[in-house]
């Protein structure tokens, strides 16, 4: 009689522990999802500013059509990207194109003096800061989730429960090389 009671107690306790682990992992996964969605909010804000920026630059620097087209094309690609990996890649391309655009604008003093351009530059700079913060937060959430499914004893049941490791918001190989090479300084 006491044998069966002990057995039942053990089963109940193990069940509760399993439920606890499952719910914990679900919460951590949701945190990562939400963090990515918050990154998306910043990315959308950035994409919304670009048409205005392109028009302003075109008015003063119409020769730089290649750079402007690169920005517009990158924006369209980013807006229509599907999977998470495509999104990350497209947004990294857009970051590169924008960097190129601002570098090129340095050669046009009239453009730099334009109030609209200055305001757009400030807003984009603000968004880039917020984007960096959102990405760091996302990476922390991903790191927490990945550690959660790798720790013992969760690691034993993570795969059957359907939890898979997530990828960080990576800067991307091309960008990493570009950022490693110092920009040429011409006087």
């Amino acid at each position, binding site marked *: 009689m006491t044998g069966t009671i002990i057995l039942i107690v053990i089963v109940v306790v193990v069940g509760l522990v399993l439920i606890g682990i499952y719910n914990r992992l679900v919460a951590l996964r949701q945190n990562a999802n939400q963090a990515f969605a918050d990154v998306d909010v910043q990315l959308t804000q950035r994409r919304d500013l670009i048409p205005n920026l392109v028009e302003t630059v075109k008015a003063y620097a119409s020769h730089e059509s290649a750079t402007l087209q690169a920005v517009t094309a990158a924006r369209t690609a980013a807006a229509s990207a599907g999977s998470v990996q495509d999104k990350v890649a497209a947004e990294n391309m857009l970051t590169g194109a924008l960097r190129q655009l601002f570098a090129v604008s340095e050669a046009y003093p009239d453009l730099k003096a334009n109030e609209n351009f200055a305001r757009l530059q400030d807003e984009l700079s603000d968004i880039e800061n*917020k984007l960096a913060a959102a990405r760091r937060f996302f*990476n922390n959430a991903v790191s*927490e989730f990945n*550690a*959660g499914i790798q720790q013992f004893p969760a690691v034993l049941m993570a795969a059957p429960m359907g939890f898979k490791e997530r990828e960080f918001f990576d800067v991307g190989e091309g960008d990493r090389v570009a950022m490693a090479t110092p920009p040429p300084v011409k006087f």
Partner: protein
Amino acid sequence: MSQAIGLQTYIWNNNLRSAVLLAGFPVLLIGMVFAAELLLIGAGGLPSTGSMGGDVAYALRLLAGAAPLAIAAALAWFGVAYLFNQAIIDLATGARKVDRAAEPQLYNLLENLCISRGMRTPDLRIIDSEALNAFATGLHEGRFSVTVTRGLLGALDRDELEAVLAHELTHIINRDVRTMVIAAIFAGIITLIAELIFRVLMWGGGRRGGRDSGKGGGAILFVVVALAIAAVGYVLAIVIRMTLSRSREFVADAGSVQLTKNPDAMISALRKISGHSRIEAPDSVRSMFIDNSDEGVMSLFATHPPIAKRIAALEAYGGGRSAAPGPWG
């Protein structure tokens, strides 16, 4: 409670710690009531059964009736505090309510945080003090308020102000003010019982002798045990209350990072505030400050963790990168 591996698990661990601490209070209260009974039996206020074992059993039986009474008294006390809390705080600190027109930037910062969190924007108040401080007040929906000092508005930049507002907002979201009022009331009742026990011993000691001369040894033992429980309970009540307060501060720092995604702003705000936060205010408000620089004493009795520990936690779990000023600035 396993080791925290990130921001969320850090918050969960601290919440568990807070719950355990809070649960300690009723236990401590019942212990104090038991001690008071032992004292009364030993000092002759309550009838003795003649044997120590019998006395202890008698005290335990009494406890079954006395403990619910004590808890009920605590609840009643809490009810009164609930009604008068906000008025007392406003009177004591001289805070002025401000609206969007008076402080648009500050109000927008607060409102944006609330919108992103899906909560009603609390009242915004300002104190005309040069000190750098902020606190959250209010015990229920519709009466919440965030107060900042004039000095804080002048010293912090936009991101740092946002981090401080997010910290106070987290206190509101987690209903920390209510938790600390409950803790203060429990601690108050427990220390009151302890003081009564000491008081009874002081002027009750001389009048003993006649009734329980037969069992002098047992009575003295009871009195000593009661005294020990009272002393330990007194200290423990304060320590639990302060440890609970520090735990809520860590969670509020973490909550600020969750809201703003910007741990570095919280770190630099803490650096600026450290050492400049002194304002006059009643105790119940002090524990809700963003920093309480009053203490230099033992850290067990501090309402807030030391700034260095808070920054270290933000770096370890919040992803903060501490840019301590180097030799070049």
